[in-house]
């Protein structure tokens, strides 16, 4: 492992890769601060730029963008109560009240330090867990991978919230169906309707840019956010942010919160589909529950604990979400799904073999994550007052620029204008599904996993001579299948239980 760490250090510390982290953190912070644009859009926007890079540099840039966007999301949550990312929603609960009290600087400093510590603890845990899990997963066969892909598809649905499970399943299925467009591995054309532009299938970049960057920008216009004045942002960025320094007592008070939230965040992040949003809410809830009655009173009114807990947890979860990606090749979130797509486009297959075949990419990504955290703390924190000026840029100028960057990002990869038209059409469909409250992250996950799922199923059936018995006869496959079933049935079971309880209450009330 030490050899690997040194390899990662030597790759990450080359001038070009240091520049990548630096640029990534800055770009990510800027994009993440814009309400509506989160890490997914930020990374999607970066993909065309990184196409010519070597895989390690590309991944390092994206890791920087990821962390920067998460940090940027928190900044806009604190300053203008507009979380740029869903993972920063819980940050706004106490961060914005602190800013309103004239302690914006303190809130931003607390957010930056807790993000750094959450990321650091997460990176250490990642360093410990990933190599072990990668070695274990080397014994996996196609059947196990098929089960894992299935688990990846269902897990995101299970964590999608009350009443959303079936909708998330449907969107995953839609993603899987879209993945079958184009030429299959045996060379047969499927659903191409004789259109040559569809022979290679729908581009993953096109789909991710259309469903996230383009759709988000259109929704901002649709909801009327583009012309709204932003008095809060102007007030908070133009006026003094207050001191960025923290007292010793404050540090002592929040230190245990950081420890608890880091562990919770990391392990929640490891679960496919859970991610930073759930981690941040769980951490906030946990801290609120274990706080003394006086401290609990402060939650929602500018409590330092209430700010630190979600901020630490969402960063630790962001790191944790790399575990399934790097070890099993399964993205745990929409962001890591995009990273998986990017890795595949570089010709790098994530999964247990990544550790053996491309150790420089594997270790450089892990090291650069930590580096990204340091850069965010050292460089971004002092620059916050200046970065916050971005929130003053009129949305009527920003939105068309975002639309243009999304379109040109896709064009620069294929140099095909048909892709632009297809992107607009998919973007409109994505907006319709967003209005109908159908989640888009499962669609992307299904699309990314579709090809691998089919490949592994085909191979498994070939090995087992057409028999599906591998699902229950191979212990690893059977275990994963049981977990998958439990994951998908759990929300269903709790819904039935809730309904039952409600019915009993109503009977007694009568």
């Amino acid at each position, binding site marked *: 492992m030490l050899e690997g760490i040194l390899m990662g250090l030597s790759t990450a510390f080359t001038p070009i890769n240091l520049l990548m982290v630096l640029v990534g953190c800055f770009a990510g912070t800027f994009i993440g601060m814009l309400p509506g644009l989160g890490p997914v859009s930020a990374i999607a926007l970066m993909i065309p730029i990184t196409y*010519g890079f070597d895989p390690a540099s590309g991944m390092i840039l994206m890791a920087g963008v990821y962390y920067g966007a998460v940090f940027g999301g928190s900044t806009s949550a604190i300053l203008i109560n507009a979380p740029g990312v869903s993972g920063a929603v819980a940050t706004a609960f106490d961060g914005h009240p602190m800013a309103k009290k004239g302690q914006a600087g303190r809130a931003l400093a607390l957010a930056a330090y807790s993000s750094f510590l959450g990321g650091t603890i997460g990176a250490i845990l990642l360093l410990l867990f990933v190599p072990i899990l990668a070695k274990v997963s080397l014994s996996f066969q196609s059947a196990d991978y098929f089960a894992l892909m299935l688990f990846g598809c269902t897990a995101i649905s299970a964590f999608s919230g009350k009443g959303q499970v079936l909708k998330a399943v449907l969107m995953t299925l839609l993603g899987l169906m879209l993945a079958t467009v184009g030429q299959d591995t045996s060379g*047969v054309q499927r659903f191409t309707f004789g259109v040559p532009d569809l022979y290679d299938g729908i581009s993953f970049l096109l789909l991710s840019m259309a469903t996230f960057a383009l759709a988000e920008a259109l929704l901002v216009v649709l909801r009327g956010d583009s012309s709204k004045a932003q008095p809060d942002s102007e007030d908070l960025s133009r006026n003094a942010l207050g001191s960025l320094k923290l007292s010793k007592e404050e540090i002592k008070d929040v230190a245990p919160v950081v420890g608890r939230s880091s562990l919770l965040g990391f392990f929640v992040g490891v679960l496919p589909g859970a991610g930073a949003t759930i981690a941040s809410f769980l951490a906030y809830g946990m801290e609120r529950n274990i706080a003394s009655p006086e401290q609990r009173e402060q939650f929602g009114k500018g409590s330092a604990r209430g700010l630190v807990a979600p901020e630490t947890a969402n960063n630790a979860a962001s790191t944790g979400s790399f575990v399934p990606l790097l070890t099993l090749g399964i993205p745990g979130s929409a962001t890591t799904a995009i990273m998986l797509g990017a890795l595949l486009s570089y010709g790098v297959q994530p999964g247990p073999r990544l550790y053996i075949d491309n150790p420089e990419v594997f270790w450089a990504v892990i090291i650069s994550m930590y580096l990204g955290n340091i850069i965010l703390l050292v460089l971004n924190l002092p620059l916050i007052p200046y970065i916050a000026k971005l929130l003053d840029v009129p949305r009527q100028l920003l939105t068309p620029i975002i639309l243009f960057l999304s379109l040109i990002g896709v064009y620069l990869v294929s140099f095909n204008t048909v892709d*632009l038209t297809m992107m607009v059409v998919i973007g409109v469909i994505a907006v319709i599904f967003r209005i109908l409250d159908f989640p888009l992250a499962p669609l992307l996950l299904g699309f990314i996993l579709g090809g691998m799922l089919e490949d592994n199923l085909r191979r498994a059936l070939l090995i087992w001579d057409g028999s599906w018995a591998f699902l229950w006869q191979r212990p690893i496959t059977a275990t994963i299948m049981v977990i998958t079933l439990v994951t998908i049935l759990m929300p269903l079971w709790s819904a039935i239980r809730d309904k039952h309880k409600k019915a009993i209450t109503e009977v007694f009330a009568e």
Partner: protein
Amino acid sequence: MNYIDNKDKVGSLLLLLFSLFYLNYIFDITLDPNAGDQFFTPRTLPMGLACVTIVCAFVQLLMPGKSSEDVSISGAVAGYRWKPTLALILLMLVYSLSFSFLGFVVATFLFLMIGFSILGERRIGLSLTVAGGLVLSMWGVLTQLFDLYLDTGTLYRLIMGDA
């Protein structure tokens, strides 16, 4: 229950229609004549996906829904600004269709200028500076720094006599 003004029902109906359309085209996938006894053909996964989606969409359609306020489409879209959104969508389509003819610089400049105007930016000087600056800097970075080819457009070639 109002099926037309219901997000869940309309969404699942759209997915049901899509999966029926998808199912219909599965039979157009050409198979190897010797594929009759193969257990996994290019149709296997699409067929499975279509069937599962149809079942799930039906379940979602027939399931008792949430309160009408939560899932009302008309409630959700009340106050939405359709005009500028549709104008922007149209602008993007025109941009994609005119890109080859006008070329990167002209098409992008016009796209940004019209986009700013659609969203209510009335300061022409500022719009010109932002659009012009962005287009030229992007063109410079992409063609000079990253050595990428950007289409100059048929119009440019016609004017310059290169066509």
